[in-house]
């Protein structure tokens, strides 16, 4: 059995809200789960379920109120630099340095991950080719279309050759051709490098194509966690040939 890359133990997260932040809004409620090594792990749920919060906690962008999160056996708070060196992030509606070109942005983030010289230039060239960004290489980021920005975001997330990759709605805003290509890149990258991927998406077709395991969140709690096949069996009696969309509707209504 594969080791767990991510171990989340009884994590709760609230945000201050109301006048002077005196009230607390519960976003994640006592969540525990393990992500095995080498899988594409879907984090699903309706809007406001806590998906992005969960990813943000694991990547140490926010800190939990209670509980612990370990990545590759190390606590994400106490060993933040080690964990950050092993992972990277691609989010939907990505924002990067607007005045810098595509290649300058990729170069900037490559340097932040300690990639220098010929290695950096080669990786940037390879990723620009992979993401079909050649004609946009010297284009300012704020002049790019939404879909092109998304491709830059995925390129940036792969520049450090991470062992753990967070994809937060990676095909958001892409046309069908690019969405299919992106899913292919994700699948091929996963197959070639055996990296662990955490994927959030609202496209259940993507889940069916990519995910080896999924977890469903609703109102900050885990309501189901299994392989897509097993989850579909649970709704088989209601629908003849259930899809992940049927599973989503069944679990989240």
């Amino acid at each position, binding site marked *: 059995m594969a080791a767990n890359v991510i171990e989340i133990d009884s994590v709760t997260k609230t*945000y*201050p809200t109301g006048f002077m*932040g005196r009230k607390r809004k519960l976003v994640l409620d006592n969540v525990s789960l393990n992500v095995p090594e080498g899988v594409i792990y879907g984090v699903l749920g309706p809007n406001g379920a806590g998906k992005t919060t969960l990813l943000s906690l694991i990547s140490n*962008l*926010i*800190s939990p109120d209670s509980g612990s999160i370990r990545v590759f056996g190390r606590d994400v708070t106490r060993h933040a630099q080690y964990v950050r*060196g092993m992972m990277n992030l691609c989010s939907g509606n990505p924002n*990067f340095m607007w005045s810098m070109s595509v290649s300058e942005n990729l170069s900037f983030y490559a340097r932040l991950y*300690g990639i220098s010289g010929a290695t950096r230039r080669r990786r940037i060239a390879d990723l620009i080719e992979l993401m079909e960004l050649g004609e946009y290489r010297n284009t300012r980021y704020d002049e790019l279309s939404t879909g092109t920005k998304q491709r830059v975001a995925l390129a*940036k997330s792969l520049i450090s050759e991470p062992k753990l990759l967070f994809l937060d709605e990676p095909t958001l805003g892409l046309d069908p051709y690019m969405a299919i290509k992106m899913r292919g890149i994700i699948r091929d990258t996963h197959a070639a490098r055996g990296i662990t991927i955490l994927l959030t998406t609202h496209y259940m077709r993507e889940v069916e194509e990519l995910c080896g395991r999924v977890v469903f969140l609703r109102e900050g709690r885990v309501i189901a966690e299994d392989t897509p096949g097993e989850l579909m069996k649970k709704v088989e009696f209601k629908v003849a040939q259930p899809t992940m969309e049927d599973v989503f509707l069944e679990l989240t209504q």
Partner: protein
Amino acid sequence: MMADVVYWPFIAVLSIGFMLAYLNPGARNVSVVLSGVIAMSVLQTCQLDVSYSLMFEMWSKSMKHTVVAPVSGRHYLLGAWLFGMIRASLTFAVIAVFIRLIFKFNIAACGVGPTLIFVSGLFLSGLIVGMIIIVLLYTFGMRAEIATWSIVSLLLLVCGIYYPVSVLPASLRAIGYSIPLTYFLEYYRGFYGVRVVPDALAKGYILSAVYIVGFYLLHYLAVRRAKRIGTILKMSE
């Protein structure tokens, strides 16, 4: 960005220099004011690069991508400060040339060593001001942006940028003497016949060390709070 290394110092030198030509205050007072022009320009250039390192991320809403990278806070600050020192050195060189050509004032008349010591004090002050702004940005978000340009103006009043601190009322003088920049200005002006406080240089460096350590700790606490209440995520959306 290189334009502000040349443009603003040039404007400052011209406006202050012509004012001095009009007032004709005497050689010692000219040195007091022109050393202030140098300090203001070098300090502002240095601190802007430290504070801009975070502000560009905030304006671009790209902070989270930098925060998840394996760069520690101290490396980030040091890198920004190093860049600030390089650009501030260019500012210093530009001002030295302008002042020499236009007003026949030699910035390094007191010697290369004391001049470099004075400039090192300005760099340390630039780091301190930049760190203050970064702490304010993490704590209050973009509302603190105004501090980037206003803190140095406040320093103008109490550090004796254009006048000795001794002319200030007692309350402001006390504030002035709690700021490291005051002592570096006093040290430099001492070479031009201005009476200075004893041990100005030692006090400047000791205070600088205290402030740098103190504001680095505040920076750590501000980042921790930002992660607790979700500020970094809000500034990335």
